């Protein structure tokens, strides 16, 4: 069911746009939304967007697989949830109510792994699984999207054994069904371009893409451990929906709006450091490509290739001068697929993730000694990204502002 567009490098699961992100990014982004909107409003938004985008995925899966009965559809939902690395979710219910029992749910489980020893969490962490549960029952019973509302009551991140989600009729009957179809995504792009080191980028991206095709949640836990992180195949619509709707909700508060934009940019740092960095130092990378030598020209090509392979868009190296400048250009970004449909004609380019990612590329290339063992710890992250990056980034063109390409330029600060 996974397909990849040759034109855009976008990835689709049953024609639903998907991308790969690690738990560090997932937790950071979810927390960012809560920080911007408050936990209650943040959770409400995340659950609602999760439900909408999961409805799209599950509807497409049902269509593609021909699953007819309620049992078949719920089984399909659980299978793909696990296969995509989100954990184990058993959903039961009828047209008006139900419940879902979760184990190793990605957000709650990884939060407990990352923070559980130091922090007592007050609120459940699995907004995505919660929304997904509601959507699974809606699709199982051919209900309209938004008919049901799910709430997580207990979560492994709160130091209980498993996660418990209740599903009931949605009292507010939210009918916002903001989705991006495959056609929408493909039409949000411009003609593909090529850049420097294109052969290396293409070949490495292909190798990674072939590898990820075989990667899925393990049978026992439904989670994917790879490259030193927990990876999910996730819905781009979820990431975009929570990010851009949160921005929209904050638009009348300039201070929060700016902070949110900066955090969304920082999410690019978090992803590149943990996922991209983790990939470069992984055993899988050594087998596939070889141990990085530290050559900046190799590293910029590898990092760009990883971006493509994870479904972020057809990122290209327009210009790279080690120690001085990096210009990333792309004819497709997963962010713009959403902006193009729901937030057209923006006043300024707002593909925050690619801004942060490009800057993080230069930090990783120039501030790490790739000839020595590298430990991607929170302390190392802070030393690289907090208090003086040494680099600055500007998005000079954006597909989100009707330019022909998205272009970000990283130069010395």
């Amino acid at each position: 069911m996974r397909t990849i567009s040759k034109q855009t490098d976008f990835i689709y699961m049953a024609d639903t746009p998907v991308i790969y992100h690690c738990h560090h990014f997932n937790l950071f982004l979810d927390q960012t939304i809560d920080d911007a909107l408050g936990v209650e409003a943040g959770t409400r938004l995340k659950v609602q967007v999760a439900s909408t985008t999961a409805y799209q995925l599950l509807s497409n899966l049902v269509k593609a697989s021909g699953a007819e009965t309620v049992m078949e559809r719920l089984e399909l939902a659980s299978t793909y949830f696990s296969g995509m690395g989100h954990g184990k979710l058993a959903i039961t219910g009828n047209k008006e109510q139900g419940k879902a029992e979760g184990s190793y749910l990605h957000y709650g489980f990884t939060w407990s792994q990352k923070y559980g020893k130091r922090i007592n969490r007050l609120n459940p962490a699995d907004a995505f699984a919660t929304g997904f549960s509601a959507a699974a029952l809606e699709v199982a019973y051919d209900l309209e999207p938004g008919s049901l509302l799910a709430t997580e009551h207990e979560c492994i991140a709160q130091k209980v054994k498993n996660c418990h989600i209740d599903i009931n009729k949605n009292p507010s009957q939210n009918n916002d069904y903001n989705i991006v179809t495959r056609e929408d995504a493909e039409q949000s792009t411009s003609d593909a371009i090529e850049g420097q080191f294109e052969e290396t980028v293409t070949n490495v991206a292909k190798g990674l893409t072939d590898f990820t095709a075989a990667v899925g949640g393990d049978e026992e836990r439904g989670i994917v451990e790879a490259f030193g992180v927990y990876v999910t195949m996730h819905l781009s619509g979820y990431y975009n929906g929570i990010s851009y709707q949160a921005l929209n909700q904050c638009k009348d508060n300039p201070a929060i709006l700016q902070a949110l934009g900066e955090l969304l940019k920082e999410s690019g740092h978090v992803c590149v450091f943990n996922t991209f960095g983790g990939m470069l130092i992984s055993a899988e990378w050594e087998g596939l490509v070889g141990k990085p030598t530290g050559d900046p020209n190799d590293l910029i090509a590898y990092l760009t290739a990883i971006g493509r392979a994870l479904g972020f868009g057809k990122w290209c190296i327009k210009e790279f001068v080690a120690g001085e400048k990096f210009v990333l250009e792309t004819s497709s970004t997963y962010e713009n697929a959403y902006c193009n449909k729901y937030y057209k004609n923006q006043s300024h380019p707002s593909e925050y993730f690619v801004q942060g990612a490009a800057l993080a590329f230069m930090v990783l290339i120039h501030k790490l000694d790739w000839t020595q063992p590298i430990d991607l710890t929170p302390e190392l992250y802070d030393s690289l990204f907090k208090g003086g990056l040494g680099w600055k980034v500007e998005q000079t063109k954006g597909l989100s502002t009707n330019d022909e390409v998205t272009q970000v330029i990283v130069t010395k600060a």
Partner: protein
Amino acid sequence: MKDQKLIIRKESSCFNNLKWRIFITQQIPHDQFISQLITLDYQEKIHPLYPKIIEMSHTEGHSIIFVPKTNRIQLKLNIDLEEHTRIEKASIIAQDIIEVFKTVKYQG
């Protein structure tokens, strides 16, 4: 046969002492790697990047990844192992591997 100088250290980005790197100085032929680990009750799993990566899983739930090109050996412990036992378990597994590779004929 020279004694192996085996070093074990926690793998980069390792969660809670689950992943370890085992260092063996001499290049191991990958068919011998497989056959020796089988003697220790490991079974070969087909890794998506086979034969660039060899993966062997043990009945106790831990697994070994071997990269023939770079001689990298990664141990992944069973996640259900209690955390306070992991360092010791990793050491025991590494020791078993030392013993078995003492019998291997190395290239060069």
